[in-house]
């Protein structure tokens, strides 16, 4: 709280949260009774949610207002094998060609299949240094919350909003509430940021963050690398929050410095000076606060069909009768039927057909390194298949330079090209009906990875240990 005395009038100014600061810095227009009009610093687009938006522009004779703040990649619907050949599915090919033609027509930069900068939008933005603290970043994809790891206000939008941003570089938005998620303590070996976020979602449920921007705080968060922070912010949407963010610090600045689009020289100094102001004031008041003890966390895994249905890997499949909330009980009953699981079965007894390592949640170089360190010298279990899909072409090249591809291949895993792949099963990378996966992705919805497929969400470490043993496992079980 600050007290300002001006012309004899004493005014009390309450501190602001990080989210409020970034919000206030982007208000283009504020009128009573209307949503704020916010300026958008970076608009990422991809082939699935943009074609109808470009069509809308054409129909009304509008242009892309700021092509220089817009970037397109191909990720959701592209194959991860034989990427040098034409896309086999004609409907997928039409969608990708439509993006290419739209980008050409409207002057938007695009990184197409085969380009060294191609990859999942949320991996590419940070990697190019385009994701920076204090920015507003949007994309027609709910995992845009990933970029919040840099202290940016980043959120997913629908196609109508994509068109709105293309045309005006702004969005009318109602101001969200703020929630602090305090994670204190230190993680035990084998426990990762994926386990933190799965534990948070299990605690507050898939609707707990609805209407809020989450701010992840505390010593356990401060200790995380940028990539680990991205994993946490990525899954904010799975708790119902459109955005989640972390205050930038030296770890953030070090990650950005030297990247292609990082500020340079005097501009770097000006940027860092501004970025250092981007933290919640000590007296800022959050609308809600929750607490989590990092010391108590262990590897986490989901048992059901929404990301809130998670438990420690050492536990057993829960009994729906133990849920007091009737909605939760019904949902749990349905989930166990769909997942073909019996209450009381130890999670570690569950056999896994496919291990998927990849996605915008866990498809970065640190994730591949962590998994490779466990896979090295081992073999993927006889009845299990492991797919490794780097988050971007750059991640793939980096991994190959470090010999990680050879470790995965020697173990019998598949080494593929970059894309969203089996995270959403839009391209040919899908589970067969009844097949069960351990997946480092973000959603265990019914059929998410292929019609009739069953998904258990896990960290890259659990994914690697599971691939070796063929049942849900942590590295400690090896």
């Amino acid at each position: 709280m600050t007290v300002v005395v001006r012309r004899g009038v004493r005014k009390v100014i309450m501190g602001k949260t990080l989210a409020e600061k970034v919000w206030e810095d982007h208000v283009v227009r504020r009128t009573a009774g209307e949503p704020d009009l916010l300026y958008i610093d970076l608009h990422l687009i991809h082939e699935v949610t943009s074609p109808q938006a470009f069509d809308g522009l054409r129909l009304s004779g509008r242009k892309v207002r700021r092509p220089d703040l817009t970037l397109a990649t191909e990720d959701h619907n592209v194959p991860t094998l034989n990427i040098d050949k034409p896309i086999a599915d004609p409907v997928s090919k039409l969608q990708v060609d439509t993006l290419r033609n739209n980008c050409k027509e409207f002057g938007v930069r695009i990184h197409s299949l085969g380009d060294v900068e191609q990859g999942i939008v949320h991996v590419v933005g940070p990697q190019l240094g385009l994701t920076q603290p204090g920015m507003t970043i949007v994309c027609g994809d709910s995992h845009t919350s990933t970029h919040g790891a840099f202290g940016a206000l980043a959120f997913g939008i629908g196609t109508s909003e994509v068109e709105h941003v293309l045309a005006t570089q702004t969005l009318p938005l109602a101001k969200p509430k703020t929630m602090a998620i305090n994670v204190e303590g230190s993680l035990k070996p084998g426990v990762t940021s994926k386990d933190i976020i799965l534990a948070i979602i299990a605690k507050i449920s898939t609707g707990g963050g609805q209407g809020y921007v989450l701010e992840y705080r505390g010593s356990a968060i401060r200790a995380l690398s940028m990539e680990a922070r991205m994993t946490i912010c990525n899954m904010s949407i799975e708790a119902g929050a459109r955005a989640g963010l972390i205050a930038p610090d030296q770890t953030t600045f070090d990650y950005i410095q030297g990247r292609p689009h990082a500020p340079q020289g005097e501009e770097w100094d000006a940027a860092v000076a501004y970025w250092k102001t981007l933290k919640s004031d000590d007296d800022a008041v959050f609308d809600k606060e929750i607490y989590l003890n990092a010391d108590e966390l262990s590897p986490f895994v989901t048992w059901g069909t929404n990301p809130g249905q998670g438990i420690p890997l050492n536990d057993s499949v829960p009994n729906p009768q133990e849920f007091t909330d009737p909605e939760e009980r019904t949902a749990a009953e349905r989930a166990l039927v769909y997942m073909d699981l019996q209450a009381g079965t130890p999670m570690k007894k569950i056999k896994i057909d496919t291990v998927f390592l990849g996605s915008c949640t866990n498809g970065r170089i640190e994730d591949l390194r962590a998994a490779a360190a466990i896979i090295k010298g081992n073999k993927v279990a006889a009845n299990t298949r492991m797919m490794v899909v780097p988050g971007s072409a750059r991640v793939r090249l980096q991994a190959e330079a470090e010999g990680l591809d050879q470790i995965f291949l020697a173990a019998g895993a598949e080494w593929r090209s970059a894309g969203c792949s089996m995270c959403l099963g839009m391209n040919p990378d899908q589970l067969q009906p009844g097949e069960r996966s351990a997946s480092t992705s973000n959603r265990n919805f019914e059929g998410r990875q292929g019609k009739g497929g069953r998904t258990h969400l896990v960290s890259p470490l659990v994914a690697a240990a599971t691939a070796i043993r063929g049942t849900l496992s942590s590295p400690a079980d090896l």
Partner: protein
Amino acid sequence: MEKFISHTGTGIPLRRSNVDTDQIIPAVYLKRVTRSGFEDGLFAAWRSDPDFVLNKPEYSKATILVAGVDFGTGSSREHAVWALQNYGFKVVISSRFADIFRGNSLKGGLLTVILPQSEVEALWGAIEKNPALSISVDLESKTVSYEGHSVSFDLDDYTRWRLMEGLDDIGLTMRNLSDVEQFEQKRAKFKPKTLPVLS
């Protein structure tokens, strides 16, 4: 966008919570580059079950979907809204909607109405008792009415006005482009640009 002032139709009870947008329309149906034709993907996996509520003939004419809590979670795909509209739904009622889905629906003219869970359950019961039950959703008075029972719902005045006038946001923002231009003048120089390509 078509104006939405009121709608009268029959309902369909979807007694499920956490209906995510992957259930509303699975990813494999998202490959179209148009805004129409998504009705075949609506609840595609569930519709393969003959007992699924959408397959019941008594609900075949329904235009008001009454669903469990946390409707529309997950992916931001606006195709979920288009699929519901293409199929013929005008209104979705639930006790809680996911933020992105709700935003998409209200931009596209699919009215999402939030009622307390007890009212949702009362409505489920009434529809199941009489599938031909006439339900009216009125934006003027912000009420849902059936069988002489009327319950009011909240919607901010701005969104209500926009829906009732059938105005699209882009046209409204275009009226204030001078504010955008002024804002752009004072943006910090260190903010990144995607062009020219520097990688």
